[in-house]
């Protein structure tokens, strides 16, 4: 008989969670709730004696100081009660730790089928609350129907003795695992199976698949193995491996690019090979610090003689769009497995986030599944729990608001690790599998969760997307596995390691077996969360927190003992062979038997038509604006724009201090409340060396030309790194593309060819800039299909596509982290310099956007001019001549002068007529043009000559001084006063939009 324990805070204690719900209900829905008390419910579905129940109640589940609890419903007063619990099969982490603690305290083992489930009950008071409002709060604020179930009780419905009753979200599949064979008499038949099973096979792949299975040699071999027609396991394997997510078909596809201006057409055989691989290989030869690129889970660069750093970036857009918290936590925890699975394994040392969402205060007619406000809260919290609970500092982050992300949000997650250069004498960046080595699965168990996640993210979000692909990442399980694997690595027990992410075992084993050229997998050995999974489900499930490791038989006992020590589940599930076959069995019967090289040959490339229309042809022009005369109000309004203003509430939720190596934090300045240009950590605590990291996102420029969007994004990431002291000669890059669908369809995607052209141009810029700045691409990913179909006001649906977006991450090393510089002005009397030229480049700027204009003069990057500027900054910082350095980013000079003043809480006197400019004759252009390649540097008067000498060959000017007036004063081209606003007032305006959020 189940038992239900209810726990709540003592009545005199403040319920912070309840208070949060009240304010969110008011904030999101304008529903006024007087108070909320939260009750934690633990349902113990186990045979326990009264004594045992009392022991676990008092010893584990009730804090005698703060909590009260009872096995009967707690008699809390309410007008409405909302219960929220997980749906069957959704991972209940507190339920698992409850079992662990109970077994320890009671010295028992729960019997098979016994379990513990956690849920919550919220007691809400407010005499005017209606059922309709409560159902809205339950559905939209307290739960997500994909993973949770709810019950709403009114005061009158409630039976005080019965309470919520006993709701056991037990998975009961009652299903005998079965391997199905799929007849494939025709292409159409196989296509039908693909549609029916949600395999998302590309129609062009179908003849190739059929022809493989029809080959006489293949048929003979299969017959010997006891197979005839392809099995569902085999087709799922092919589907996963061929998905755009795993195989990057778009980036490996053929593009026919036509320039609408010249009419010239050219063909690009593979964006990846042409614009990513080729420049990176060229640069790898020039840069001796590049250790390993283009093949592993993350790229590897040299940190010092004894250590390498690893880096990669991912997105988790589709799942986050449906279940913000679960999608985001799974994203960050998932990307943390990549460095862990790079080389022989690296320790995670830093993470970062990038969120792109719709307007937080959107009030229009479109109805996305989650309102941007709720979606943003969810992704913030997901990345927070995933990062903080992993013990990895979140050193950097960005948020971009734009209506295009209403269709699908973007959640970028980036991970950096560090590993010793050698492990037991072996180079740590190399790994392989060899025949005879055992395949070990470590970490979590396998359930239905995550099935078809890979193929679903390769499709536009629609009502048919299976909800089952949303999961909740479990940083606790993964942290244990992380610690275990690093110790196993250091003992030399690991031959090969990779993560189980998209595609599950199908990808991790399938890909690692290519190295040994074969494997045997015993699916019946794979530990399951619950019985009843079909073989194909075990094979492709994306249940999280799992790594696949190759261990030689002589080390397996030590490996398993260490796993036990760390309380990590590890299971031998097969062995690597050199048979040339992927051979999968279940209880001895073969359920897949295909050639390892099946995926290597014969599949057709995807093809795209790309048509470029230059901005002029698309009717873009510069707006006609007379020069404003109230620059004070203008600057205050710009500072309060969502993409400029302070988002301190997000930053402070992320632990950026753990591991003890933070040098330049996300927030700096006298009151540590303004954003730094980049992040610096000391990943090796006994060394002065710093790891420098920055990112940039400038999707707005894609409205004019994705080439310049990409160029400016890369330039900004570089400039950010350089601004804190990064070495321009050591910059590793990571590109993360997020693009709307590019396959042309006259009805469904009429501008597909243009978006394809934007992608080609973006890739060209990537190659051009990487070669110009000498940035090898250490890692990169792409996520396509950033579109959504949103219901509108009249029942019509509207396709909303994201801006063409590329996040760029830059990583480097600085020799002496004590020489790093922050962006806050430090001392009154210091000289204010601007480096680089300002051009008439207001296109797609924040300034134009304030008025609703796009314009045409998008900022451009001139590496020949900018490179020497960055070298000069590097020299100035190296010689300790700069008191502060800050790049000029979104919003332009005006906004960023305000930033450095606000950070230092000091005034500045600035003379715009001194600003080096090319073709700029107006004050608003000087102040708000977003020309790339510029920085603001402040220098103590005694360092004037030395600093100016370093700048001899570049464009620079002293444009004013730092003052103790507390006022930002700017005079215009005619030396007339333009701006005179107290810095404190600027800061108030900049912080105002989100000041009530903590």
């Amino acid at each position, binding site marked *: 008989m189940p038992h239900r324990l209810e726990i709540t*805070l003592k009545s005199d*204690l*403040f319920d*912070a*969670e309840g208070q*949060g719900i009240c304010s969110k209900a008011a904030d999101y829905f304008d529903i006024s709730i007087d108070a909320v008390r939260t009750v934690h419910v633990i349902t113990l579905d186990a045979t326990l004696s009264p004594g045992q129940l009392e022991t676990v109640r008092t010893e*584990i589940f009730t*804090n*005698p*100081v*703060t909590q009260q609890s009872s096995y009967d419903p707690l008699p809390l007063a309410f007008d409405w009660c909302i219960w929220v619990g997980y749906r069957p099969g959704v991972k209940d*982490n*507190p339920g698992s*730790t*409850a079992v662990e*603690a109970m077994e*320890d*305290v009671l010295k028992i083992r729960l019997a098979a089928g016994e379990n513990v489930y956690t849920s919550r009950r919220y007691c809400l008071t407010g005499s005017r609350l209606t059922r309709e409002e409560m159902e809205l709060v339950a559905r939209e604020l307290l739960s997500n129907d994909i993973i949770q179930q709810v019950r709403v009780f009114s005061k009158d419905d409630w039976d005080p003795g019965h309470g919520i009753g006993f709701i056991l979200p037990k998975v009961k599949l009652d299903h005998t695992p079965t391997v199905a064979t799929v007849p494939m008499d025709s292409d159409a038949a196989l296509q039908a199976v693909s549609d029916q099973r949600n395999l998302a096979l590309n129609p062009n792949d179908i003849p190739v698949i059929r022809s493989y299975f029809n080959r006489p040699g293949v048929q003979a071999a299969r017959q010997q193995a006891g197979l005839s027609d392809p099995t569902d396991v085999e087709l799922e394997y092919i589907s996963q491996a061929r998905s755009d997510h795993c195989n990057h078909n778009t980036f490996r596809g053929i593009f026919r690019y036509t320039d609408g201006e010249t009419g010239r057409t050219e063909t690009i055989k593979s964006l990846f090979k042409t614009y990513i691989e080729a420049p990176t290989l060229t640069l790898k030869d020039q840069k001796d610090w590049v250790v390993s690129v283009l093949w592993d889970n993350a790229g590897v660069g040299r940190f010092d003689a004894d250590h390498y750093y690893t880096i990669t970036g991912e997105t988790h857009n589709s799942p986050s769009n449906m279940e913000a918290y679960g999608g985001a936590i799974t994203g960050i925890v998932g990307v943390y497995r990549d460095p862990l699975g790079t080389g022989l394994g690296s320790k995670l040392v830093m993470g970062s986030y990038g969120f792109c969402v719709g307007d937080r205060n959107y009030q229009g007619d479109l109805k996305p599944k989650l309102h941007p406000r709720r979606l943003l809260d969810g992704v913030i919290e997901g990345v*927070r729990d995933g990062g*903080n*609970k*992993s*013990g990895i500092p979140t050193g950097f982050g960005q948020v971009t608001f734009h209506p295009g992300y209403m269709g699908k949000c973007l959640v970028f997650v980036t991970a950096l690790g560090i590993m010793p250069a050698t492990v037991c004498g072996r180079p740590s960046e190399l790994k392989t599998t060899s025949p005879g080595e055992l395949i070990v699965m470590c970490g979590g168990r396998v359930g239905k969760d995550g099935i078809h996640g890979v193929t679903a993210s390769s499709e536009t979000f629609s009502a048919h997307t299976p909800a089952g692909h949303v999961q909740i990442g*479990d*940083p*606790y399980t993964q*942290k*244990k596995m992380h610690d275990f694997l690093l110790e196993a690595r250091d003992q030399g027990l690991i031959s090969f390691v990779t993560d189980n992410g998209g595609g599950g075992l199908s990808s991790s084993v399938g890909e690692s077996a290519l190295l040994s050229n074969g494997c045997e997998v015993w699916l019946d050995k794979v530990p399951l969360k619950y019985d009843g999974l079909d073989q194909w489900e075990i094979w492709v499930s994306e249940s999280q927190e799992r790594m696949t490791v190759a261990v030689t038989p002589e080390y397996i006992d030590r490996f398993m003992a260490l796993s036990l*020590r*760390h*309380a990590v589940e590890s299971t031998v599930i097969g062995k690597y062979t050199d048979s040339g076959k992927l051979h999968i069995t279940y209880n001895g019967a073969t359920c897949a038997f295909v050639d390892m090289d099946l995926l290597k040959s014969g599949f057709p490339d995807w093809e795209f038509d790309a048509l470029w229309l230059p901005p002029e042809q698309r009717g873009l022009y510069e707006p006609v604006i007379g020069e404003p005369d109230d620059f004070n109000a203008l600057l205050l309004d710009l500072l309060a724009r969502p993409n400029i203003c302070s988002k301190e509430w997000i*930053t*402070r*939720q992320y*632990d950026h*201090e*753990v*591991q*003890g*190596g*933070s*040098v330049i*934090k996300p*927030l*700096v300045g*006298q009151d*540590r409340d303004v954003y730094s240009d980049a992040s610096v950590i*000391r990943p090796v*605590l006994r060394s002065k060396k710093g790891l420098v990291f920055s990112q940039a996102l400038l999707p707005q420029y894609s409205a004019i030309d994705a080439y310049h969007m990409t160029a400016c994004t890369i330039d900004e990431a570089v400039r950010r790194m350089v601004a804190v002291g990064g070495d321009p000669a050591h910059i590793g890059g990571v590109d993360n593309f997020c693009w709307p669908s590019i396959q042309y369809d006259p009805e469904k995607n009429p501008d597909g060819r243009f978006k394809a052209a934007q992608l080609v141009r973006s890739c060209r810029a990537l190659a051009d800039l990487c070669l110009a700045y000498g940035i090898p691409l250490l890692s990169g990913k792409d996520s396509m299909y950033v579109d959504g179909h949103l219901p509108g006001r009249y029942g019509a649906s509207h396709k909303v596509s994201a801006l063409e977006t590329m996040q760029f991450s830059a990583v480097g090393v600085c020799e002496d*982290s*004590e020489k790093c*510089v*922050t962006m*806050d002005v*430090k*001392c009154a009397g210091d000289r204010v310099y601007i480096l680089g030229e300002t051009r008439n480049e207001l296109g797609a700027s924040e300034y134009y956007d304030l008025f609703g204009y796009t314009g045409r003069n998008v900022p451009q990057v001139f590496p020949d001019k900018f490179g020497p500027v960055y070298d000069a900054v590097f020299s100035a910082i190296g010689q*300790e001549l700069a*008191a502060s350095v800050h790049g000029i980013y979104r919003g332009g000079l005006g906004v960023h002068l305000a930033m450095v003043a606000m950070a230092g809480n000091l005034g500045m006197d600035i003379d715009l007529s001194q600003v080096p400019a090319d073709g700029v004759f107006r004050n608003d252009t000087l102040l708000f043009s977003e020309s790339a390649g510029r920085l603001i540097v402040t220098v*103590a008067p005694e360092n004037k000559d030395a600093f100016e000498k370093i700048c001899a060959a570049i464009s620079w000017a002293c444009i004013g001084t730092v003052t103790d007036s507390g006022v930002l004063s700017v005079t215009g081209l005619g030396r007339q006063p333009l701006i005179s606003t107290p810095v404190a007032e600027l800061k108030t305006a900049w912080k105002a939009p989100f000041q009530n959020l*903590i």
Partner: protein
Amino acid sequence: MTKQKKIKALVLTGYGLNCDNETAYALTLAGADARRVHINALIDGSVSLDDFKILVFGGGFSWGDDHGAGVVQAVRMKHNIGEPIIRFVETGNLVMGICNGFQTIVNLGLLPGFDNNYQTRSLALTYNDCGNFRDDWVTLAIDETSPCVFTKDLTRLELPIRHGEGKFVGDSEVIARLHDDHQIACRYAMPDGAPADNQFPSNPNGSIADIAGICDPTGRVFGLMPHPEAFNHITNHPGWPRFKESIKRGRMTNADLPVTGIRMFENAVNYFA
């Protein structure tokens, strides 16, 4: 000169703890011989507490902080090595609990340790009043008359906090006794050292009486929410680039730089000197 044997310190690892590397590093800087030991190695007896003088329950999210921060860790420790831990305390050794470790030793009952009772749970660290996890730097005012070994000779200290459940609560009698016996070793303060008086963000979590850390009556058991190990180098301090400029210009000297968190670990090591 004969080489003096270093004081051995044990830093717990495993089950989601995550500050073990930097805590061990901080102890090493302080002159200790620090070892990271998995909780299970202590439980299964392959490592014995008898070999150590300092035991650190460090920061992290043990058991995911499910069922309350530090709760399951305390349950596991109490039921498996509860007695050896109490013996460790009673034989004159030092115990430090940082953040999740503080939550754990409060749940274990090692604190407040009134009347040599190291088993009673009479205090709690609960959800921050601000309703969220928070990362920030705080100023701590030290009770110089506290018997606390770890805060000896300190008056003020700036350290990072990073927690969601750091609000210190207890019955008023317990708080009064902590106060009277000078067990409240550190309180959250304004930047100038004046009491925070429960003002956010100087008191970041709403702790009663601004309590940031307490010790037992002997001063040998100490727990605090802020992270001294994360201020192991001057560049950890958010103000360091500003200090550096001031020093360059002769407006301050190295002697004016804030004391790092290493001092707490040095106090622990020097206790045995």
